[in-house]
């Protein structure tokens, strides 16, 4: 799981163009949206693209993304369970 989390952080920074943010700055349980990384609705859709391209996981309903993308932790758990 830890390995997956490290990889995920790098991928999120790359996919979402999070300049000036280092992987170490992202706390596993911090919310990705709202206060945390302050991601927005386009970022949420981009994370769906990330899941499909990097992990072969298709999210058909973007509404589901809200739970999956709550934090790095929840995202990693979802990937582990669905890969």
């Amino acid at each position: 799981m830890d390995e997956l989390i490290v990889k995920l952080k790098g991928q999120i920074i790359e996919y979402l163009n999070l300049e000036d943010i280092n992987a170490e700055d992202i706390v596993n349980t911090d919310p990705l949206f709202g206060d945390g990384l302050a991601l927005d609705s386009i970022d949420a859709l981009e994370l769906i693209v990330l899941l499909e391209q990097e992990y072969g996981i298709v999210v058909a309903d973007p509404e589901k993304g809200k739970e999956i993308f709550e934090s790095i932790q929840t995202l990693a758990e979802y990937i582990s369970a669905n890969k």
Partner: protein
Amino acid sequence: MNVNISTYCTVSNHLVKVNGTEYFEGAPDEPNFLKALYQKLEMSYPKFFKMDDLSKLGVLGVELLKLHNPEISNYSDDEIGLVFQTSKGCISSDLSHQEKVNKKSPSPSIFVYTLANIVIGEISIKNKWFGESILFIAEENDTSSTINYLKSLILTNKSKCCILGIIDAYDNKTELKMALITKQELGIALNEQNLKAIFEK
């Protein structure tokens, strides 16, 4: 009252001038000139890095005008009109999106920039400006439509002042000509010849 050109700035490849005076020059081999200008302006706006080059350039241009003419912030949030023109628009984003489409894997964050008017949206968001705005497609030296409409906005009092932007960012080309246009007694009248003259300074 006349419609006059006030503060203006130009970005031509790596050279930045404000009111005709050099403000910044990026190294010729600088791969990320827009980021260098962002740093020079001491901005802190993470959203900047998500933008396409066209939007980045537009947002930076407005910061340059504000820096040299703080009075812009005296206007209320819907008194400033944004009247822009571009020749190639968002062709860079178009090409990136098409590449993704060919791979059957479109990216929402690229697709959204395949509308050239997004640059105006980004400027509006950054500055919390709710006023009139429009994007025309025109060759860099063909400013007649843009000027005519801008004048009508001021003459009909729909906008108290306007920011005129002539903008292009694609391949290795980064070109911006931007000016604050206001209604005042004295100054350089807004017309094609005067615009050309100040921007060539």
